[in-house]
């Protein structure tokens, strides 16, 4: 008998889970809140809210400096959180995990430091056509600075990367590939293993923007063999103002500091400054200590529920929502990749997405409308924007029913 039989994850008790998130009890204009904007930011469970209170009530002190009791306790909690992230990503070493302000900050760090060290005039950086502005603009700035070129992996109408065209872009001039693991606008799960494997054949490192991935899909950086991976705390049920840069030791050790000051310093003289080892070299100034610690709590929370169970439930929810929305006349889903995470972008013929968003808000349903900071993608589809529904594991089929009824009502009002 085979020993690696897949064990189906236990079903989630959604009502129990919803009780963990006090904000889900909110009413909007007298109606119960239906929160479907999780791709923008996720709500926080009691565990995280209590951890924030506990931090300021019992722990608040600066880290890595003080000899006193509180400072040592805060430092211990801070480093314990780093170890939680290390385990969560299955990184080889905890010093490969850098605390940043968020995904955008982490990408900017790599763009600046890696670019300074490794990118020369005439070199190339590759991004994809479905990137968020945060994974375009830092590379544009760096390429302009280094006189390098930015090239783009095109996509098909379904919102999938054209892998043949990707392969054709690879050559010795390519110094880095930066792609989203999951598209925030389309929900496409990109074939990141294949991208990484092909890139490594040319000795090109890969950065994965996992801001829309780590809360939905189990991620193992060693198994992926990815060189850099970034995500944000607030999208994974943790606080805002905190993000993670995972980087392989061999790359991070070769990269110059991004910002100076604070505990990134080993010794400063006016003649010369020497820098600390990883990870502190990239953590200038006083970090967002509370958020760093409480990110660990958020990770404990979702690990406790189990990402395989979350992934399975969200997939069911996505399929249900897709069917419900497609039953609406003249509604078109933008992003129909075979591999999708819990994002549903749509437009209704003859109706502006903004108008749909305002009417849904009026019914207490929170969705995102607009270009979702992916303007090149909107240009590709020739649309002004979409209505985006982004799911979390605390959402229910009943909420999807309310959404579908709300969209129908909005379309009647607007046409």
């Amino acid at each position, binding site marked *: 008998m085979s020993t690696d039989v897949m064990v189906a994850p236990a079903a989630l008790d959604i009502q129990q889970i919803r009780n963990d998130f006090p904000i889900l009890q909110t009413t909007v*204009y007298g109606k119960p809140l239906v929160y479907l904007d999780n791709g923008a930011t996720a709500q926080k469970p009691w565990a995280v809210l209590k951890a924030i209170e506990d931090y300021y009530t019992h722990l608040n002190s600066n880290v890595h400096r003080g000899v006193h009791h509180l400072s040592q306790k805060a430092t211990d909690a801070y480093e314990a959180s780093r170890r939680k992230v290390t385990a969560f990503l299955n990184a080889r070493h905890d010093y490969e995990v850098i605390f940043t302000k968020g995904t955008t900050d982490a990408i900017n760090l790599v763009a600046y430091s890696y670019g300074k060290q490794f990118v020369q005039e005439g070199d190339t950086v590759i991004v994809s056509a479905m990137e968020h502005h945060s994974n375009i603009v830092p590379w544009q700035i760096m390429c302009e600075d280094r006189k390098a070129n930015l090239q783009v992996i095109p996509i098909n109408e379904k919102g999938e990367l054209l892998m043949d065209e990707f392969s054709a872009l690879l050559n010795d001039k390519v110094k880095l590939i930066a792609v989203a693991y999951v598209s925030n606008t389309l929900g496409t799960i990109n074939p990141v293993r294949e991208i990484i494997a092909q890139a490594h054949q040319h000795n090109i490192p890969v950065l994965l923007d996992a801001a829309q991935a780590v809360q939905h899909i189990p991620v193992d950086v060693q198994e992926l063999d990815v060189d850099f991976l970034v995500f944000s705390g607030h999208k994974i049920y943790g606080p805002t103002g905190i993000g993670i840069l995972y980087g392989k030791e061999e790359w991070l050790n070769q990269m110059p500091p991004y910002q100076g000051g604070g505990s990134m310093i080993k010794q400063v003289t006016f003649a010369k400054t020497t820098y600390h080892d990883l990870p502190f070299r990239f953590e200038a100034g006083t970090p967002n200590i509370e958020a760093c610690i409480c990110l660990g709590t958020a990770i404990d929370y979702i690990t406790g529920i189990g990402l395989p169970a979350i992934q399975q439930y969200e997939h069911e929810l996505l399929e249900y929502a897709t069917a419900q929305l497609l039953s609406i006349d003249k509604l078109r889903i933008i992003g129909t990749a075979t591999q999708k995470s819990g994002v549903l972008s749509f437009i209704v013929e003859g*109706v*502006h*997405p*903004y*108008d749909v*968003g*305002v*009417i849904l*808000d*009026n019914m207490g349903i929170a969705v995102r*409308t*607009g*270009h979702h900071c992916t303007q090149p993608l909107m240009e590709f589809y020739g649309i*002004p*924007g979409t209505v985006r529904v982004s799911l979390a594991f605390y959402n229910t089929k009943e909420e999807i029913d309310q959404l579908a009824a709300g969209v129908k009502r909005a379309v009647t*009002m*607007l046409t």
Partner: protein
Amino acid sequence: MTINEIQDELIEEFSFFEDRNEKYEYIIQLGKELPLIEEAYKKDENLIRGCQAKVWLHADFRDGRVHFTADSDAIITKGLVSMVVRVLSGHTPGAIAQAELYFVDKIGLQGILSVTRSNGLLSMIKQMKLYAVALQTKTS
């Protein structure tokens, strides 16, 4: 009518509606009904680019007064735009520059200006005032 009298008239019109839905339906109706701008003026240089909806604005100065026309690709924004045009159009540059727009809050759609902030409505009001100030400077 002065700018404030028109605003008060709008507030009065909206006071007949009981709930938010009816107010939205009226705004949508205003957006659907009003032909706001000549097609020739719907060009890029007249475009106020917001995060979501597009707004086109054209200003015409005749007989000492500024006449605005505008449009938007989103119907709710268009309804709001039509109200702003109704309030500010046909007044002297000085009156427009000094006008304080309170009607959107008063009609009882809390948050609609903040919802719309990124959509160019506030940019549009700012642009209208800039036209007025520029004309005021030119004519004084």
